[in-house]
């Protein structure tokens, strides 16, 4: 399966960054700025429903 780009936030320094994540690959996470391991993967926002509020054309 192709890796996906996920967004992470460091809970120590607040730094947000993106990283390629491969499904099934288990890797220790570390903030690239402060090297803390308090890394939270931010949830993807659901894609806006194409049917709702679409263009009126």
């Amino acid at each position, binding site marked *: 399966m192709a890796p996906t780009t996920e967004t992470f936030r460091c*809970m120590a320094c607040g730094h947000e960054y993106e990283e390629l994540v491969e499904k099934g690959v*288990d*890797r*220790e996470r570390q903030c690239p700025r402060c090297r*803390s*391991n*308090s890394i*939270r*993967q931010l949830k993807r926002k659901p894609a806006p429903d194409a049917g709702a509020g679409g263009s009126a054309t």
Partner: protein
Amino acid sequence: MDAGRHPNIELLTFSEVDDVSGYVGNFTVRIRKKARYVDPTACNACGECAKVCPQVRPDEYQMGLSARKAIYIPFPQAVPCAYVLDMESCLGNIPIACGKCADACEKKAIDYDDRDEIVTREIGSIIVAVGADVYDPTQDDEYGYTRFRNVITSMEFERLICAGGPTGGHFVRPSDRRRPTRIGFVQCVGSRNPRLNRPWCSNICCMNTVKDTLLLADHYPDTENVVFYQDIRSFGKGFEDMFQRSKQAGTRYVRGLPGEIVEDPATGNLHVTVENTTAGRIERYELDMVVLSVGVEPPRDLARISGLLTLSKTSDGFFMESHPKLKPVDAPTRGVYFAGFCESPKDIKDSVCQAGAAASRAGALLNAGRIRIEAITSRIDPAACTKCGLCAQVCPYGAIRWQKGEVATVVEAACAGCGACGATCRSGAITMRHFTDDQLLAQVRAVLAHRPEDKVFVFACNWCSYAGGDMAGISRMAYPASNRVVRTMCSARVSEEMVVEAFRCGAPVVLVSGCHYADCHYISANRQTVKRVDRLWDRLERLGIRPERLQLEWISAAEGQKFAAVMRRLEDLRRTVTAEEIALTRAALAAPAKPAPKPARATAPQE
């Protein structure tokens, strides 16, 4: 050879372990005996089949420096001494189209219809001795290995100088089969190289090169040898003496690895440029041959073996032992032991020592007929168990037996006591002996009973983080005195309720700390910690509590500095948490937790 003849040893060659189930003293191992296409009991190794075989392939044992036939004996002194048919190389993979070997075999030992056979064995203990692989310098074209004919590896050197090798022990160089008289050895190829993701020392290469230079000095006294090295690691009995003898025999040791190797196309000679860091100057050498002293790496199918036996690996990719000092041959899975390279690079003497120790450990276990376990295993109350099976899912040892609709049970002989199941169980049916919920919650409450606002509350795992704190202390590292540590065997033992209770008791900051991923002493239990902390961040956020007040860190036993740095950072964080914020947190957590909002259901399209 002795093992092959021993009445108490069943030797299954050309076989592979397909599956391992059970636990210490009661393993069931399924083994695939691969088809040889030659009956080893009938074959008398006369070699008539190989003489008529028209298929020629590079001989793997001779590092591709000579050829073998499709039907062959893999190496001299192979046990059993019988031919094997490489079906992938056999003519057109349709043997009946050729059949010359079968015609030539007087014993009628060749069977083209041979198939893999599956056998099972009941095993009490398992010794893992799968060895290691050798670094392949073609990957990065190290020192022109793929371009220059006279750049060879130390493994190829071994075959070239061996009396049983492709040249019968006559040492020649590949380009013109002339005997080289100026030979350079380059150390640490594929070792101690973070750029190649191989930061480890391979342990054996220095002394192997010293041995090679002595061999050359003995066989060909007119040979000039130059060794390019970072530093020679000649520790061990008699090794320093051997190194000194190599120098006395005329081998020149240059401290510095070559920056460039260029081939003279006319002669095949190699021009080596190196910075001699001892002399502080650039030196150039013209050599007939360069030998790359290649390092070792974990075997390529290590992940498969790791999965079969639920073993864990250290950061360098080799198997992790149960304890580096006190249990150096035991795997984290009870009843499994290590011998040799698969645990870490080591020489023959160390491998023999470790193999002897592993055999003794396995023998002692089997002779005793019973095992003693630490009183920290988990226990399931069948009356309270809701039969959800979550505990079985998170157990890294497979020590919990569960089937849908049935109460879970613990195989205590296999349980290591990490506590991941206890922290996961929602019905409170699991008790971790000596680390019960009540005991840990009582510690939380006691620690935070007075002036909780002044404290940083720390959950630390027994093996790494707690030891990291010890290291910071014995190293006299300065860090704020505000932290209060509660020890659990594994960070996975820390349940959501324990963290919530700490905040409820007024803790401004809570840290959950454990081993680094590669160092987890319970195989992969700390992955459950990550999931739990993730859920807690979500929960705190929903309740209007700053999620940053819960922190997660991996701190190894050697990282006293990191422990001190984290404590300093958390003290800074603690100072930002106001009394009002703590009071609001207490109020938010005092109320029953609000369920997570359910995602809105998609409405059916209206007609």
